[in-house]
C-alpha cells in the first residue's frame, strides 16, 4: 500500500491495544445507510503507471517554449535562476507548515521577515504581510482593509485595473452593501471623490501597459481621508516610481513575476504593503522580530489578534493558509538578482517592448489606439484581431492577448508583452510572421 508504513502485524497489535476486532469497527457509529458500499474510484496504480498516464496527458500541451510567446496580461514569463528551484525544494521549507511554533521554525520566520523587508524596499512602503493568495484577492483584501479604515461605503476604481481583479473584487464584495464605481479618467475620478468614498483604487502600469500617474487624485484623496490603493507589478519597481513615492496608503499586486514561473496561472502569490499606521487593519500573517528568553534575536508570528483563529467573525480576514512558499521564492529570487539584476529585468523588458512597438509601427495595418508611456506591454490594433492571433499561433507566435475578451469595444485590440526571454531575433520573427499573415501568405 503506497505511503503506509504499518504492516498487518502492526495493525493487529494496535487493534488489540484499543480492544477492537477490525479497522472497520472504528467506523461503526457511522449509520450504515450512508456508508459507501463499494470502492468509489478505480483501483490505484504503481508510480510508474501513474507517471505514464500523466505524461501522456502532458504531451498534449504545447508549451510557451515551443513557440515564441508574447503573452502577459497579468502573468509574466520571466527567467527564473536555477538556484531558486534548489532552495525552495528543500524539505524544511517545502514540507513544513505555518510557523506556529517559533522555536522550531526560526528559518521559515526569518525567511518571511526578509521577504517582508524585500517587499517594503521594493514598494517603498512601511510594512508588508506574509502574503495573500494572488494579486486579485490581494486587491479585494486591500479594498476591504480600506473600507474598514475609512468606515465609508463607496469604492472608486480608475479604469485600467486588470479586469480579472475587478471581477474578483466584485465577487468578494458580493455579500456586502458596499458600492463599486468605475471612472474612466483622472478628471472624472476627482469629480467623484466625496465624503462617502472610502477607497480609490488604481493600477500602474495599468492593464493596458500604460504608466499611470494619478498624482492629483491621490492628493485630493488626502483631503477627504480616502484610502488610496495602488495595484502594481513588482518587477516594474526595479525601475519605476514606487507606491511609497506616490504616498499611497496601500500597495498590492501579484507576486508571480518574482520567480514563480508560469504553471498555467498558479500558484503565484498576492502581496500587500501599507503605511504602518494601518498595520492593525491588515489581513494575513505578519512576522515580527523579537528576543528569546536569553535575549537572543528571534522571530515569530505577531499581531495575531487580527486573525480568524482568535477573532473569528470579527477578524480582519478569513485567511489562514496563504502562499508562503511563493513569498519565500520571491525573497530568494530577489536575493539572487539584487538591485542590479531586478532593474536589469525591468530595463530589458522596456527595451524589447519598445523595439517591438516600433517595428509594429512599420506595418501599415497596425494602429495604436491606447496612448501613453509603457514599460513591458502595450496595446496595438489590427482588423480581425481574433483571426490574426489564430494565424500567428499557427505560425509559431503567441502574439498577445485579445482585449475583446474583456472589453466589447476593443475587439480589434491586442495586448502584447515582452520579457527578457524574448530576444531581438524573436521580435523580428514576430514582425515577419505578422506581415505574412496580413499579406495573406
Amino acid at each position, binding site marked *: 500500500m503506497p505511503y503506509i508504513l504499518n504492516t498487518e502485524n502492526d495493525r493487529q497489535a494496535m487493534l488489540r491495544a484499543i480492544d477492537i476486532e477490525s479497522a472497520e469497527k472504528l467506523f461503526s457509529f457511522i449509520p450504515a445507510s450512508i456508508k459507501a458500499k463499494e470502492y468509489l474510484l478505480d483501483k490505484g496504480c504503481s508510480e510508474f503507471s501513474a507517471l505514464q498516464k500523466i505524461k501522456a496527458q502532458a504531451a498534449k500541451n504545447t508549451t510557451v517554449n515551443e513557440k515564441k510567446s508574447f503573452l502577459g496580461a497579468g502573468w509574466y514569463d520571466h527567467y527564473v535562476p536555477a538556484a531558486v528551484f534548489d532552495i525552495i525544494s528543500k524539505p524544511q521549507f517545502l514540507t513544513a507548515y505555518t510557523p506556529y511554533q517559533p522555536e522550531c521554525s526560526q528559518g*521559515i520566520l526569518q525567511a518571511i521577515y526578509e521577504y517582508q523587508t524585500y517587499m517594503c524596499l521594493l514598494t517603498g512602503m512601511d510594512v508588508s504581510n506574509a502574503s495573500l493568495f494572488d494579486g486579485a484577492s490581494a486587491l479585494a483584501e486591500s479594498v476591504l482593509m480600506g473600507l474598514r479604515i475609512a468606515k465609508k461605503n463607496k469604492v472608486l476604481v480608475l479604469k485600467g485595473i486588470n479586469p480579472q481583479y475587478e471581477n474578483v473584487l466584485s465577487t468578494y464584495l458580493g455579500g456586502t452593501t458596499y458600492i463599486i464605481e468605475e471612472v474612466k479618467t483622472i478628471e472624472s475620478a476627482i469629480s467623484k471623490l466625496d465624503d462617502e468614498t472610502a477607497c480609490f483604487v488604481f493600477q500602474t502600469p495599468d492593464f493596458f501597459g500604460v504608466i499611470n500617474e494619478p498624482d492629483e487624485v491621490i492628493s485630493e484623496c488626502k483631503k477627504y481621508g480616502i484610502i488610496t490603493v495602488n495595484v502594481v507589478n513588482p518587477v516594474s519597481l526595479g525601475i519605476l516610481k514606487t507606491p511609497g513615492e506616490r504616498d499611497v496608503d496601500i500597495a498590492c499586486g501579484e507576486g508571480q513575476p518574482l520567480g514563480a514561473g508560469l504553471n498555467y496561472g*498558479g500558484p503565484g502569490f498576492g502581496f500587500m504593503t501599507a503605511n504602518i499606521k494601518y498595520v492593525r487593519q491588515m489581513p494575513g500573517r505578519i512576522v515580527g522580530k523579537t528576543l528569546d528568553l536569553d535575549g537572543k534575536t528571534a522571530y515569530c508570528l505577531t499581531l495575531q489578534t487580527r486573525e480568524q483563529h482568535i477573532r473569528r467573525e470579527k477578524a480582519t480576514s478569513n485567511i489562514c493558509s496563504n502562499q508562503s512558499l511563493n513569498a519565500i521564492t520571491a525573497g530568494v529570487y530577489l536575493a539572487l538578482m539584487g538591485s542590479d539584476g531586478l532593474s536589469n529585468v525591468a530595463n530589458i523588458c522596456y527595451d524589447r517592448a519598445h523595439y517591438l512597438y516600433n517595428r509594429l509601427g512599420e506595418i501599415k495595418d497596425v494602429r495604436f489606439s491606447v496612448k501613453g508611456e509603457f514599460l513591458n506591454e502595450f496595446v496595438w490594433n489590427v482588423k480581425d484581431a481574433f483571426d490574426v492571433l489564430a494565424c500567428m499561433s499557427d505560425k509559431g507566435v503567441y502574439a498577445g492577448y485579445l482585449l475583446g475578451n474583456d472589453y466589447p469595444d476593443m475587439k480589434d485590440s491586442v495586448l502584447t508583452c515582452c520579457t527578457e526571454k524574448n530576444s531581438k531575433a524573436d521580435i523580428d520573427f514576430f514582425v515577419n510572421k505578422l506581415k505574412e499573415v496580413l499579406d495573406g501568405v
Partner: protein
Amino acid sequence: MGCKVIFDITMREKKNSYLPEFSCGYALPEKFKRKELCLPELGELDVIRHYNKLSNKNFSVDTHFYPLGSCTMKYNPKINDYIAGLENFSALHPLQPIDDVQGILEVLYTFQELLCSLTGMSAFTFQPSSGAQGELTGMLIARKFHELNGRRPSKVIVPDTAHGTNPASAAMAGFDTVIVKSNDNGLVDINSLKDIMDESVAAIMLTNPNTLGLFEKDILKIRELADKAGALMYYDGANFNALMGVTTPRMMGFDIIHLNLHKSFSTPHGCGGPGAGVVGVTEKLKDFLPVPIVVKDSGRYRLNYDMKKSVGKLRAFYGNISVLLRAYTYILRLGGDGVKRVSENAVLNANYIKEKLKDDFKAPYDDICMHEVVFSCINQKEKGITALDIAKRLIDRGIHPPTMYFPLLVKEALMVEPTETESKETLDYFIDIMRKINSEVETNPSIIKNAPVTMPVKRVDEVRAVRDMDFRWHKDGD
C-alpha cells in the same frame, strides 16, 4: 550561532549574469524612474548558504514527526512534485489558445470527475487557494442561491468547535454567525440546533468529523432540520482524511463542500501555502460556481465562462495548478482501495495514541475518535505545567507539537493528528515521550518550563514582538 539577516551579509560587486545582455537601444525616460533601489548584491553561494542555514532551523514532515491537529501533516510523495515540475505543465501560460492546452484541461477535467466520485458532488471549481477561500466561495454560492429563490436569509450557523475560518468566512460573505453549542458528548446539540434553525438561516457549516475528532452521528437529523428551514449544508473538508472512501459528503447530506488538497491529498504545506481549497457542489448549485469551469464538448476540452448564475471569480485564472497536479497524481496512485486504507489507518493511528495516552492525559471525550484526538492538559495545569509547556518540551524531543488550545471548548487542549503515513514505531516513540513528559511534571518540572533548549533559540517572547512592532529590517541609522 545566529544567522545574519540577508541584508547584513557582505555586499558583492554588482554583476548579474542570469540575464541576456540587452540590445535594442531603448531606455526609460528619467521622469518615470524610482529613487535608488537598495537591495543587497550577493553571490549565488552567499544566497545558497544563507537559505541552507535557514532551512536547517525548521521542523518539517520530511524530517520530524509533525502531529499538528486539523492540518493533516502526512507524507508528501515525491512523484507528485516531479509531475508538477514537468515542463509540459509548468511552462504553460494561462492565456494560451485552448488547442495548445488540451493536456492540462484534460487533467483538470479528469481530476474533477475523480473528486465527484469521491465526494458525491456534481461539479468542482479549482479556484480557491485555501480552505478559507473555499468557504467564502461556498457562502457566496449559498447567498446567491437563496437570492435567486427570492429569499434573503441572514444567518449562518457554526458549531462552537468550528475552525476560526468558518465564522470569519461567513462574515466576509455578509452573514451573521450564530453559534450552536456542543453537547456533553462533543457533538452538535440537536435541541439547541432546533432552537436556532429557522428560515433566517442560509446555511450550516460543519466539519465532520468535528474538531474534537468525533463523528457527528446525528448528521442525518441535522440534514432534516436544515431541509425544513430551507438552509444549505456546508462541509468544511479539513477533516476529510478520516472518511475518504468510507462515506461521502453527499451521503452525509451536504450541498456545498471544500476539500483542502494540502491536507487529505498530500500536497506539501510550503511553510503555510500554497494550498488548494477546491469547492464541490450538488447538481442544483452547479451553475453558481465561479467562472470558468472546464467542460468537454465532443472530445475537446474548453473553459466555460457562460454561467449566468455564477458568483463571479475568486482569483485570476483557474487555480493553483501545480498543487492540483500533485493531488491528482496522488489519487491516481491511491485509487478507491488506497483512499479507504488511508482513512482506516489514519483513524487507527489516532485511536492507538488515545488509548495509550488517556491514563496520562485527560481525553475529555472518551469515545472512539476519528483521525485526530484531543487531550486536555488540565491535570498537568493544576501542577503548574500548561499545554504550551508540554508542546515546547516535545520540541526538545524532536517532535513538532500538536495544535494547542484548540478547539476552544477543551481547556489546555492538545490536538493530535498522527496521519496514516506514520508507523507504529513512530507513534510508540511519541507515546513514550508524552508519558515521560508527564512524569517530568512531577519529577522535573523545570526542564519542561525551560524547554526548548535544543533549538537555535529558547522560548520566544511573543508579547515583546507585539510591543516592538519590528516587521522589517532597517539599515543602521534609518
